[in-house]
Structure formats: C-alpha cells, structure tokens
C-alpha cells in the first residue's frame, strides 16, 4: 500500500483553488464542505494511527473539523496547504484527548514496518527482536516518536513533516535521522538486557 498522501502534493493551481474555497468558507461556513471532504480521511487516519479506539478517533476527528470551521477566519495562507493547519489542530486535539479522556496513546505498527526497522538495524526478523523494537518504541520521547511515525509508518516526505511540525524541511530530515539513531540505541539497550 502506498501511504504517501496523494492529495498533499499541491500544485500552484491546486493551492490557489484551495485558497478560493477558504475565502468563501470565511464568509459562509457552508463553503467549508469541499475542504471537509478533501481532508476528512487523512485527518482521521492520522488520529487513528495514534489511538487504540476507533470510535474515539472519529470523535476527535469531528472535534478537529469543528475547531477548524470555527476558526477558519483566523487562517492565514503561508504558501502551504490547509492540511498542515488541520494537522496542527489534530495534534493538539489528540493531546487534549489523552489528557481529558484518559485515552491511551497507541503506536500502530505492522509487519512491513518491523521488516524496515530490522533492515535498518541489520537484525534478523525474530519475535524477540520484534518485542525489543516494540519496547524501544514505547520508551521513546514523544517528539522522536512523532518523527518516526510520520516518516517510517506514514511514509510522508520531509517537506510535509516539516509543515506539520512547523519546522524547515532540512531540520525535519536531521531530526528524523537523530530520532532513528536514538531508537536504534534503545533497541540495542533492550537487546543487551
């Protein structure tokens, strides 16, 4: 499955069209409908990836779009798609959900991700190594985990990661590399124990 977000890579025309939609939505919230339809799935997937309860993930997604429609008048175009603004709302709503509802922060991982990490760590794919990887992921700092999830689980380009986390593309690259190094260290620490 290709996880790279197909609607993210906006052309200038697409960005201009989106701007028109936003301008209309600022005057009349009913014009927010095309933006809602465009981003609903990807925002839900972003939230669901980080939660263990699917129904709760739908609730948080609704809350994200409610905040977005309510605050669309405050949105300022800075050359990036509306999506990056929605992701920032989603990130803050997720944190709020973890604080308020005591929902558990989840890390969703599948066989292909495990295989990728084992290849990077030059380790064989065994159950023991898999458990060590899970332990290492669970022990990571939240900021590092976010980078690992965005890059390795969701396969997003560095430019998009930068826009979601409000950092430069190069900085996203460096930070992701460092996060991977720290994951590697945690993995080897668990291997020695």
């Amino acid at each position, binding site marked *: 499955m290709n996880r790279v977000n197909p609607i993210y890579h906006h052309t200038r025309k697409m960005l201009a069209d989106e701007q028109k939609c936003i301008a209309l939505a600022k005057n009349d*919230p*009913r014009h*927010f*409908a095309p933006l*809602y*339809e465009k981003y*609903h*799935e990807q925002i*839900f*997937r972003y939230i*669901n990836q980080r939660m*263990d309860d*699917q129904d709760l993930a*739908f609730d948080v997604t*609704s809350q994200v*779009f*409610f905040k977005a*429609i*309510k605050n669309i008048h405050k949105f300022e175009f800075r050359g990036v798609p509306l999506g990056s603004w929605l992701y920032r709302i989603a990130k803050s709503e997720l944190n709020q959900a*973890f604080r308020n509802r005591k929902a*558990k*922060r*989840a*890390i*969703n*991982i*599948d*066989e292909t991700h495990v295989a990728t990490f084992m290849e990077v760590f030059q380790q064989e794919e065994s159950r023991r190594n*898999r458990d060590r990887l*899970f332990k290492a*992921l*669970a*022990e990571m700092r939240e900021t590092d985990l976010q980078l690992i999830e965005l890059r390795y689980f969701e396969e997003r380009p560095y430019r998009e990661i930068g826009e979601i986390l409000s950092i430069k593309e190069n900085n996203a690259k460096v930070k992701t590399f460092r996060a991977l190094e720290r994951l590697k260290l945690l993995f080897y620490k668990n291997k020695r124990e």
Partner: protein
Amino acid sequence: MNRRKVIFNRTVPSSRSIKEREDFDQLLEQYAQSKHPYFSRIAFWGTVGGAVVANFSFCVSIAKLT
C-alpha cells in the same frame, strides 16, 4: 510510567468505511449551536448598560437644572 500501547497488525479501516462516517451537516449544526445569539454577548450588554447609565445621568442632570 509508560502509557503507550503498541498494536501490531491492526486492521486498517477502508476509505469507504471512513467516508460513511463523514457528516458535514452535523458539523454545520454544531457550528450554528456554538454561535451565541447577539443578546447573550458581552458586547450587547456592555452597550445596553452604557446607554442606560448615560440616560440615567442625563435625566439626573436635567432634573438638577430644573
């Protein structure tokens, strides 16, 4: 305390099932409900209050003159 849960090979919901949960009308309804009517806003009561005080002061000053 580690509060993270690692889930391995969870079924990913299909685009269709996510689409089924889209409800823009409900979002609009929620938005409409969140908008306070003008009479319940601070700006309204501030204006009304200010007008009442100004009117009262005017009446008192007129009464003093006559």
